[in-house]
C-alpha cells in the first residue's frame, strides 16, 4: 500500500519539471477559454467605439455633417457654454431626485421582503423584476395613458370630484421623474435586499437586548451596516437615469430636456458627431468620477464592517 501511495504523494508536494509546467499551461488555456470571448466582445463593441468617441471630441463637424479631421478644442468650449451646462445640471437634478425617491421607496420594500418567510421572499423578488419582462417602451407608453389630460388618473380624479379640470400631469419634470423611478426602482430594491438579507439578525437582537428601541436599532445598526447596498443601489439608479433619453422624450414631451436627449439630437438631428461625442464624454467622465467615489466609500465601509 505504502509503496503505491508514496510516489503519488511526492508528486503532489514536489512536482517534477513536467508536472509543474503542464498544469500552468492548462490553467492559461482555461483562462483564455473562459475570459477570451468576453474580452473579445468588450474590445470590439466597447473599447473601439469608446476610442472613436474619444477621438471625435478633438475634431469638428463638416459643412454637410460628417467629421472633419482637424484638431481643435472648440467642442470643449461649447460644452462649457451655459446652455449645455444647464441641461447637464437639470439632468443631474432629475436623476438625483429619482435616486433619492427610489431609495426612500426601495429601502422599506427591500426590508420587508428580507423579513418575509423564505418561500415568500422568492415570490416577492420575482414580482419586483416582473416589469422587466415587458418591453420598456410599451411600459413607458402605458404611463402616457395613465397621465394624459384624458387619461385614467385625471378621469378618476374628476369623476370622484376631487378636481374640476384635468391636471397637467404629462409632459412635466414630475412625469419624467415618475417614469425614471418606475423604470429603475427594481435596480434599487435588489442590491438593498441582498445587503439587508445578509445582515446577521443577531445584531438586531443584540441591539434590542442592550436596550434599543426598534427605531434606534434601525438608525444605529441596520442602516449603517447596509450602506454598501445603499451606495450600489444609488449608482444602479443614478447612472441609467442620467443618460436616459426615451423617458424625457415620451413623458417630458421635449419640454424637459435631459443630457441624453441632447446627445441623441447631436448625433441624429444636428449630425454634429464631434460635439455629441464631447457631450457623451462629459457624461462618462461624470459617471466615472461618481463610481470612483462609490468604490472608495464602499471600501471604507467594508473595512469597518468586517465581522
Amino acid at each position, binding site marked *: 500500500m505504502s509503496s503505491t501511495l508514496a510516489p503519488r504523494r511526492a508528486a503532489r508536494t514536489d512536482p517534477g519539471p513536467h508536472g509543474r509546467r503542464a498544469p500552468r499551461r492548462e490553467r492559461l488555456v482555461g483562462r483564455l477559454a473562459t475570459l477570451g470571448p468576453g474580452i473579445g466582445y468588450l474590445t470590439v463593441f466597447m473599447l473601439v467605439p469608446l476610442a472613436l468617441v474619444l477621438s471625435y471630441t478633438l475634431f469638428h463637424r463638416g459643412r454637410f455633417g460628417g467629421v472633419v479631421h482637424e484638431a481643435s478644442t472648440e467642442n470643449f468650449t461649447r460644452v462649457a457654454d451655459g446652455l449645455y451646462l444647464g441641461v447637464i445640471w437639470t439632468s443631474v437634478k432629475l436623476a438625483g431626485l429619482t435616486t433619492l425617491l427610489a431609495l426612500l421607496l426601495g429601502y422599506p420594500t427591500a426590508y420587508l421582503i428580507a423579513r418575509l418567510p423564505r418561500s415568500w421572499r422568492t415570490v416577492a423578488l420575482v414580482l419586483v423584476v416582473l416589469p422587466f419582462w415587458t418591453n420598456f417602451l410599451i411600459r413607458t407608453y402605458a404611463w402616457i395613458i395613465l397621465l394624459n389630460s384624458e387619461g385614467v388618473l385625471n378621469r378618476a380624479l374628476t369623476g370622484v370630484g376631487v378636481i374640476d379640470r384635468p391636471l397637467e400631469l404629462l409632459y412635466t419634470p414630475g412625469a419624467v421623474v415618475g417614469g425614471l423611478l418606475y423604470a429603475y426602482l427594481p435596480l434599487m430594491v435588489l442590491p438593498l435586499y441582498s445587503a439587508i438579507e445578509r445582515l446577521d439578525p*443577531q445584531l438586531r*437582537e443584540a441591539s434590542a437586548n442592550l436596550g*434599543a428601541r426598534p427605531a434606534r436599532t434601525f438608525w*444605529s445598526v441596520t442602516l449603517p*451596516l447596509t450602506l454598501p447596498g445603499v451606495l450600489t443601489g444609488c449608482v444602479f439608479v443614478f447612472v441609467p437615469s442620467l443618460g436616459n433619453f426615451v423617458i424625457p422624450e415620451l413623458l417630458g414631451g421635449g419640454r424637459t430636456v435631459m443630457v441624453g436627449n441632447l446627445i441623441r439630437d447631436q448625433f441624429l438631428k444636428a449630425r454634429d458627431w464631434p460635439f455629441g461625442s464631447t457631450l457623451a464624454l462629459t457624461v462618462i467622465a461624470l459617471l466615472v468620477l461618481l463610481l470612483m467615489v462609490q468604490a472608495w466609500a464602499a471600501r471604507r*465601509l467594508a473595512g*469597518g464592517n*468586517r465581522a
Partner: protein
Amino acid sequence: MSDHHAGEPLVSIRSISRRFGDVRALEQVSLEIRQGEFFALLGPSGCGKTTLLRILAGFEHPDSGSVTLDGADLLAVAPHRRPVNLMFQSYALFPHMSVARNIAYGLERERLPRSEIRERVDEVLTTVGLTGLARRRPHQLSGGQRQRVALARAIVKRPRLLLLDEPLSALDKKVRAEMQLELKRLQHEVGITFVVVTHDQEEAMSLADRIAVMSEGRVRQVDAPVPLYERPADLFVADFIGANNLISGVVTADGLRVPDVGLLPCPAVPDTVGVAATLAVRPERVRLGADGGLAGVVRDVTFFGGTTRVAVDVAGLDRPLLVTVAGAAAVGLGDKTRVDWSDTDAVLLDQT
C-alpha cells in the same frame, strides 16, 4: 441590591412549553434560578436550552406557562426593557463600532451622562482586561478578545440576570480554560446572577453552582455538580454526564442479577426486588485486579497522563467495562484480570 439576598429565587419559570411546528422545543419546563448563583442549562443540541434562553431574553415567547423575575411577570416586558443581558454565542459585536462604542451602546440607551458612560466603560475594560484596546474595531481582535468585549458589553449594563449562550465554544482549548476561570472570578466580583447555556458538561461542571440537565425539551435533573455526577436521577443523566458503565438486570436481595454474568454489587433500595433496573458505576469506582468480582480480558489501555482508561471485556456484557486508574496501568493488552466495585459506589436506575 441590599434587599436581594443570595439564595432567594430571582427567576421562577413555571411549566412553560414551546413548539415549533411539530417539534416540541420545551415541554412543561419549571425551574427556579436563585439570586447570585451561577446556573447552567446543560444538554445535547436540540434539547431546548437555547429556546429557554431566548425566552428569558425576550426573543421568543412560550406557548404557555409563566416566567417571573423578582416576582414580576417577565413575559409582559419588551426585550429592550428587560434587566436581562445576553452574551451571544457569535458575540454579535457591532462591526462598525469600536470596542468602546460597542460597550457604551447599552449605556447610551439608558441616557446616562457622557462622563458616567466613559467612566463605566473604562471600568469594565479594566475588569475584563482589555484596557488599551478601546479604539479597536471587532475585526482587529482575536477570538478571546472579542469574547471579552461581548462579556463587557453585557455586564456593563449591570443586569439582574446575565445570559451566556455557549460562551466558550468558539475559543480554542487553552484560551477556553483561561476564560473559564475568568468567568467564575467575574461572576464572583460583579455579583450578577449568571445563566450559561452549554452542551459541554465539563464546562457546566466547572463553572456552575447548579446545573439543569435537559433533553428533548424536558428538565431531567437540577442539582449541584457533585450530586449530579454521583447520584444521577435517571438513565439519560447517568449516560450524559461523564463516563459510566451501564448494566441492565433484575434486582434481587443480594444485588443485580444479570443473565450470563451473575450477581453484581449494588445498593439496596427498598421494595425493588424483582424489578428490572439499570446499574450505573463510574469507571473510577471500579477496582482493577481485585480478588472477587468479574473475570475479564483487557481489550484496550489508553494513557491520559494523570489517569489511564482500561477497557475490560467481560463475558456476557455487550459493552466492555471501563475502568479508570490513577497513573499508569499495571495491566497490558490481552491480560486476564478481575474487576469489582462496592455496592455503595453503584447507582440503581429505572430502565425508562
